């Protein structure tokens, strides 16, 4: 029975997942709606719960509690209906050494039941769109890591599934290759497909996402467009200072954080302008710019590399 409204691709209600005897849930009480024909990004540190959420939506993992509906079907009890309509590239998926990129895409399509005659032109077209045509017949063990990663992305994107799950798909790709993948994702979105993406790359999230969900320690912290997330910060300006000020002096101007060897102050326009003037007076090195998604992210989840206590992501 189809239960969700047609405009929603994924709907989770109080979704939770706890692995084995772990004391902390990998995903905790997540209620979320992902609209159709959008690129929706889950953004979070390692261990935040992004992959766990994605795997539950992609019917690869059973939730501990709560419900999750995918394209109107229950992802726990109506897996057949869901699986006919989705494709996924798991995190850390690997290519097969003796197969070429063309073989991989053909494998993905024909294993889904495509006829060889239909699959061939589709495989060639997808490889070409991802810049893989020159390497189409090279064995995967002779390809660079980036080309192998692109091959995996091609396997999912070629399927033209209604909903595509990409778990950190651009990891290890050079900037040009990343843009080729982004462009194909945007093309697919315009063709009515929905893409659920997880990434660590803030620029990637900012460039292609229609909506972003920031997750930390299994919980959903904030959902919105890039603009909505930025406007949620009271501060609008950031000042990066590399000399001439101590941390204590800056507290009067706004939120201070350490970014490498520099100090960053998140502030409003008035105080930002005062700080910039003071920096000029002191001949200090300062850079003023609008707040970015990076600032929103750090503000919400804090600094530090990982978000977990050893649980799966």
């Amino acid at each position, binding site marked *: 029975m189809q239960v969700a409204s047609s405009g929603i691709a994924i709907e989770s209600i109080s979704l939770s997942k706890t692995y084995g005897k772990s004391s902390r849930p990998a995903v905790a009480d997540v209620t979320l709606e992902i609209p159709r024909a959008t690129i929706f990004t889950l953004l979070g540190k390692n261990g935040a719960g992004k992959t766990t959420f994605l795997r539950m939506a992609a019917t690869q993992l059973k939730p501990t509690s709560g419900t999750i509906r995918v394209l109107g079907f229950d992802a726990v009890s109506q897996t057949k209906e869901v699986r006919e309509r989705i494709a996924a590239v798991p995190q850390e998926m690997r*290519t097969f050494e003796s197969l070429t990129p063309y073989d991989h895409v053909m494998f993905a399509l024909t294993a889904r039941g495509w006829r060889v005659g239909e699959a061939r032109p589709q495989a060639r077209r997808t490889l070409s769109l991802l810049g893989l045509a020159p390497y189409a017949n090279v064995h995967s063990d002779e390809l660079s890591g980036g080309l192998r990663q692109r091959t995996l992305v091609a396997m999912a994107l070629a399927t033209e599934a209604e909903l595509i799950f990409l778990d950190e798909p651009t990891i290890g790709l050079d900037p040009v290759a990343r843009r080729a993948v982004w462009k194909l994702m945007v093309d*697919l979105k315009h063709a*009515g497909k929905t893409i659920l993406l997880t990434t660590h790359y803030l620029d990637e999230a900012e460039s292609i996402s229609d909506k972003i969900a920031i997750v930390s320690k299994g919980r959903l912290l904030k959902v919105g467009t890039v603009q909505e997330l930025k406007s949620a910060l009271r501060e609008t300006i950031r000042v990066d200072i590399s000399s001439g000020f101590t941390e204590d002096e800056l507290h009067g101007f706004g939120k201070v954080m350490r970014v490498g060897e520099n100090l960053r102050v998140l502030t409003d326009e008035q105080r930002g302008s005062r700080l910039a003037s003071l920096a000029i007076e002191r001949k200090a090195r300062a850079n003023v710019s609008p707040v970015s998604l990076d600032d929103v992210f750090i503000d919400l989840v804090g600094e530090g590399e990982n978000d977990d206590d050893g649980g799966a992501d």
Partner: protein
Amino acid sequence: MVTVEKIDNQQENPRQAPLGPRRRGLSARLRSIGALSYYSGILVAIRSPGFIVFSSTTPFTVLFFLFVIGGPSFISYGLIGATISILVGAGLFLGADATYNRLQFKFQDFCVASPLPAVDYMLGLSLGELTFVTPSLVVLICLFGYLHLITWSFPLAIVVMLLAWVFSSAFGFFLSTFILRSRSAFSVTSLVSTLLTVIPPVFYPIEVIPPSYRFLAYLAPTTHLSILMQSVLGLQSYPENQLLISWAVLLGFTVFFFALAAFKARWRQP
């Protein structure tokens, strides 16, 4: 400051494929199974023929030693043992490969999030695995012919071989979905292979085992495979009720493991 350009291609997309799922009739399922066997077996065997040699090393080594130590009288038993060992090994190595596909390549997760059912995945991989042992089976069947073991009842021997392959593939696949570490995959399947094909009376007649211990041998499905093969090929005559029991046990094992693989294997992770 790094400025981030919003990528938004508003051009008309050339990839306007019809939305909605593809129909999964029998022909689509057969194509899926064929694709899995071609890309995981046939193509790999063509490009890396070394795998063919590797998969047949143990059975042919045992056969060689049987011939050297036991002489020609044991060669017929050895041929039957090697055939069973190769087929059961192919099924169990499917378990090792499926474990690697799941844990190392993450290919099982890729397939789970697709219309491919677990049974088709298993059948496709098992047919692929069969590719690697087909040349050895052809050699063994030629040797059966050379030793005049191929008679009117040989089709029954083919049925026994098919059951050996199906039950061991289902068992191997079922096992693979529960193995937690890929480094355990080959050790677990090799151990099970030894327990099923080297220790029980597969390469030798059951009469070699003292009567009071034979019940242990009967616990292994491969013993029944061997009994049936020896009987069908006219090497040994067994009482009719023994043969009926062996057929029943073998069919029971095959149905049980196939049902286990189809309904209880971990396709989606708990």
